[in-house]
């Protein structure tokens, strides 16, 4: 597929007898939100980890920007522009909001090994970090210590750090978890704009949010994708209804 | 080198390894169950040796001395666990290292204060003096052979304890899931104290057994502690089986290296230089072994990823 930015081909991963990924193939195309849904323990986070590089698949491949990155480390993939947010916030809690964002800019620019100019006086790094904070609406809080942020603000900061990476694709693992109705509505709107900047592979349990913003949905059950399609396709798919939406009794 | 001498060295290596196992088993068990790194384990080794030397000096009975070493180390273990160690389970490794390092300072100085700076001597009991003839006509120290047997018996005992008993089941549950064991209705703090005391007793026993071959002195515990760390890194942390394999490997490598390397080097160097290079290299051999394991299997031979 010409416009597919990210492609996962026939990925297998087992933990002992448990097949967490059982031949998964999917792709992420320019300009879309591709939602990945599935019951708890279906293997969604495990798949995201393999795409991001934190976990090596037993077999299969990951292609990003027409490059086989299956053997690339997390850091190498990130430098190519694969940005990720975590199911459980992973931030440097004792640093300020701005410092966390600057950390992203340092990684993106590959300026880790510059030893003398203070990072927090480097105009380039600062403007890159502040632009990302402004985009998620955290610019007022840049001096706050991250540990003091509310849960929702941390989720925003996760996205902001991802934005500093000049991303070519986003992997987001439950960005709306614990956000509250208002917050998750706002984030949904935000993601709909963000997808034009870079496509988003979105793992989410909030079905309203997904039906509102996803362009395509893939359903993962027991390590297998049982259906991929538009919102309407998925809503209408009887397999999905029995396997996931849990409506076999109602049908 | 004659075969007989080689076999004797292999047995010495085995004896050394078995003794390291007694140390490493306790350390690895404590780490596996409580997630604690205990630098003061060497102090418990020293306490065992001093208790044995003191009791042997007073009663003249070696068996009594061994029992004293077990009891003294276990008692100190319980006291330390209840006053200091249990405050450390939830702390990070740096705090654990520092607090247990502080315990080393306290124990070492307190021992020096009690017993003085001169080494004590613990005699091998009369019944275990001398040598035995092994199959194949090899003459070997009866006492060292006894250490090997005791060590292997302890290994077997630990294996049975952990895989076959209720306490062992709880220990395994504790290793896998600290929350779950609470749900089982086990009083965790009692279990932790027991495990710590068990590890302490093993260290004490090992100190007493070695005390009869070497001298009993302040500071005797830390070199052994560091060797036990090497054993654990090689074997894989938290694994008793790994501790046994690592201990034997380290014991054999060190002992044989010290005998064989100078001989090996003398085949292409002149005598005194060969001895120098050979023995300097031999003193580094187990660390080189450890480096090799780190390169090929950073989680240790029996460790899980």
């Amino acid at each position, binding site marked *: 597929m010409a416009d597919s930015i990210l492609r996962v081909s026939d990925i297998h991963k087992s933990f002992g007898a448990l097949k967490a990924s059982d031949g998964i193939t999917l792709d992420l195309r320019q300009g879309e939100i591709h939602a990945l849904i599935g019951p708890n323990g279906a293997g969604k986070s495990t798949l995201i980890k393999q795409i991001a590089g934190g976990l090596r698949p037993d077999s299969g491949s990951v292609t990003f920007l027409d490059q086989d990155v299956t053997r690339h480390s997390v*850091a190498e993939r990130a430098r190519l522009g694969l940005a990720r947010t975590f199911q459980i916030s992973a931030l440097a809690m004792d640093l300020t909001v701005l410092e966390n964002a600057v950390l992203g800019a340092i990684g*993106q620019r590959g300026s880790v*090994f510059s030893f003398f100019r203070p990072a*927090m*006086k480097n105009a380039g790094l600062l403007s890159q970090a502040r632009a990302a904070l402004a985009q998620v609406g955290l610019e007022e809080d840049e001096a706050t210590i991250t540990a003091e942020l509310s849960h929702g603000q941390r989720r925003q900061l996760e996205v902001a750090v991802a934005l500093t990476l000049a991303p070519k694709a986003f992997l987001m693992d439950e960005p709306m978890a614990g956000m509250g109705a208002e917050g998750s509505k706002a984030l949904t709107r935000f993601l709909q704009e963000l997808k034009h900047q870079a496509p988003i592979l979105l793992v989410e349990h909030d079905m309203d949010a997904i039906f509102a913003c996803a362009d395509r949905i893939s359903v993962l059950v027991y390590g297998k994708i049982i259906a991929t399609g538009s919102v309407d396709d998925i809503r209408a798919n009887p397999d999905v209804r029995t396997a996931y939406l849990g409506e076999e009794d109602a049908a | 080198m004659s075969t007989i001498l080689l076999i004797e060295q292999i047995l010495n290596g085995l004896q050394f390894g078995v003794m390291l196992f007694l140390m490493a088993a306790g350390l690895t068990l404590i780490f596996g169950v409580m997630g604690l790194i205990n630098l003061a384990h060497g102090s418990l080794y020293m306490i065992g040796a001093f208790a044995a030397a003191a009791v042997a000096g007073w009663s003249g009975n070696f068996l009594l001395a061994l029992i004293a070493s077990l009891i003294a180390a276990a008692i100190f273990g319980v006291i330390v666990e209840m006053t200091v160690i249990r405050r450390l389970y939830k702390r990070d490794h740096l705090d654990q290292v520092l*607090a247990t390092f502080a315990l080393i300072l306290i124990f070492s100085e307190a021992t*020096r204060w009690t017993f003085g700076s001169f080494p004590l001597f613990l005699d091998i009991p009369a019944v275990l003096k001398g040598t035995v003839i092994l199959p194949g006509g090899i003459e070997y120290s009866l006492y060292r052979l006894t250490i090997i047997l005791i060590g292997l018996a302890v290994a077997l005992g630990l294996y049975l304890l952990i895989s076959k008993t209720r306490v062992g089941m709880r220990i395994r549950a504790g290793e896998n899931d600290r929350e779950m064991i609470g749900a089982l209705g086990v009083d965790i703090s009692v279990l932790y104290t027991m495990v710590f005391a068990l590890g302490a007793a093993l260290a004490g026993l090992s100190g007493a057994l070695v005390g009869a071959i070497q001298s009993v002195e302040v500071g005797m515990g830390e070199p052994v502690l560091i060797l036990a760390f090497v054993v654990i890194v090689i074997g894989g942390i938290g694994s008793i089986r790994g501790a046994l394999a690592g201990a034997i490997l380290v014991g054999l490598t060190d002992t044989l290296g010290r005998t064989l390397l100078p001989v090996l080097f003398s085949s292409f160097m002149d005598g005194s230089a060969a001895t120098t290079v050979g023995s300097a290299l031999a003193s580094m051999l187990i660390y080189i072994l450890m480096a090799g394991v780190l390169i090929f299997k950073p989680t240790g031979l029996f460790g899980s990823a």
Partner: protein
Amino acid sequence: MIREGTLNIVILCLLVAVPAYAYVMNEPFTITLATRAVIFALAGVGLNLALGQGGLVSFGHAAYFGMGGYAMGILASHAQNYDPIFDGAFLIEGTNSMPVIWVVAVVSSALLALLIGALSLRTSGVYFIMVTLAFGQMFYYFAISWPAYGGEDGLSIYVRNQFPGLNTLDPIQFFGICFAILCLVLLFVDRLNKSPFGLALNGAHQNEERARTVGINVYKLRLVAFVISGAITGLAGALFADLNRFVSPTMFSWAISGEIMIFIILGGVARLFGPVVGAAVYILLEHFLGGLSDYWFIYLGAILLGMVLFAKGGIIGKLAKKETHHGG
């Protein structure tokens, strides 16, 4: 509570005032004590970069301290015996010039840290502690069993090495040299901590996963920090050897690694001046408690234990708030 920056200046002033007073009162022994404190502080500043900023609990920094010491011992002993170190295709001679010795000490301990770090950083957590401790011990045994440079007995150097334009045998001048080096290194480490490198190192300490996901090669980052850390401690080792005019395998022993760590804990982990305060307090304790009792390590142990259990943050943590340096 006072500002950490103000406190640091007070500390530096005290560190100069004590030997200056001793110089006026003609008490060379006190100057030597102050010199020891400065050298220990330097060793601690080195370790603090790895341990405080990087979260790398190295229990083997005696290896670099000893390496620096032996760099001095070997170069100076060849110089004093007029015996070249290597005489073959080319000639390497010993030297008694401090600057040359420092360069050799820094380079050799950096190389050693590169080797040990490259292996140890493949592990993390408790493994890292045990592995660094073990590698440190390896050099201790090596130094004991290698007879060329004194083996177990160590090496004595009869005359202190030279620094152009100064009389290094004069305690106050030697103190001046050590103090100047400490100040330069503090300046260097301060800049390092604030640089992108330092921020990345700190970020990776707080959340390794985060550092990776922004594209930072955490292994390489830590290895570089570890090498710089080892090099600084190695420089301290060379000065320590020069202070005593003696090196022995004891410089490699695990107890030295523990002591360097104590300086940091007493003063305050990840504080620029933590090891400076810690080393000074350590020397004071050693001097006064050691005068009271032969068994002063009991008290030291009790103090250390108390600090770990009840007073995290060290002395600087009690006196000053943590400075946050954001945007400007």
